[in-house]
């Protein structure tokens, strides 16, 4: 999947980096290889389930209006990645992992753009070495719970979790895409800290 000239991404005039299908597939390939080290899973099972989802994701990200502040724009790209990959399952396996890692990766890639355009110095905890075992496990469990929304599972637990974290949801039967997105954004924003 690696191109002879490198991995292609898109860049807006302001410098915001957007993923391409190629970059997401390369991330997935590397993550799959990495997982092979410790998971007792059949790597042959991994692959692309439906390429159209990544094509749509790529064009959806290009079609967005990035008119908010730099940090909000960067979070918006990563939220879209996390939500779409987690819920639409472009890959045969490992979608939650790929959703998180690709959201993290493009947030890191966009920190230069954020810092340049805000004059601040933001860092991303999962890449700054301050993401300890407890924090990693907590985020992994949260991701698992959020992903259950798509299959209408664990609705009471999810409802209590969302409301407990300040997301206003009327009842456990009324959890919407917007609620999940709100939490994903909060989740990602908490990992970006100003130095």
């Amino acid at each position, binding site marked *: 999947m690696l191109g002879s000239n490198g991995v*292609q991404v898109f*860049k807006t005039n302001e410098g915001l980096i957007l993923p*391409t299908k190629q970059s997401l597939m390369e991330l997935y390939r590397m993550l799959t290889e990495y997982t092979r080290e410790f*998971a007792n899973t059949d790597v042959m099972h991994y692959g692309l389930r439906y390429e159209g989802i990544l094509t749509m994701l790529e064009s959806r990200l290009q079609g967005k209006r990035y008119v908010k502040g730099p940090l909000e724009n960067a979070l918006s790209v990563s939220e879209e990645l996390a939500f779409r990959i987690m819920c639409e399952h472009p890959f045969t396996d490992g979608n939650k992992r790929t959703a998180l890692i690709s959201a993290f990766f493009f947030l890191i890639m966009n920190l230069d753009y954020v810092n340049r355009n805000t004059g601040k110095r933001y860092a991303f905890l999962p890449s700054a070495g301050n993401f300890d075992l407890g924090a990693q496990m907590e985020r992994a469990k949260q991701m698992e719970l959020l992903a259950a929304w798509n299959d209408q599972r664990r609705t009471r637990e999810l409802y209590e979790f969302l409301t407990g974290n300040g997301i206003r949801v009327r009842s456990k039967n009324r959890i919407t895409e917007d609620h999940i997105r709100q939490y994903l954004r909060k989740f990602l924003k908490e990992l970006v800290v100003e130095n």
Partner: protein
Amino acid sequence: MSGEKTGKVRTVKITVQVTSVQISNGEFQERVKMLLDKNREMIRYLAKK
């Protein structure tokens, strides 16, 4: 009302212009590998589910 006000609603479509850029294979792999190493336990947890 005295007089009439007329106005036109103008719709401005904002399109995002993007250019394609390449990240070298080495830089891409190095950045991804570093991220994976720093989030190893999170990946391990999700992989075993």
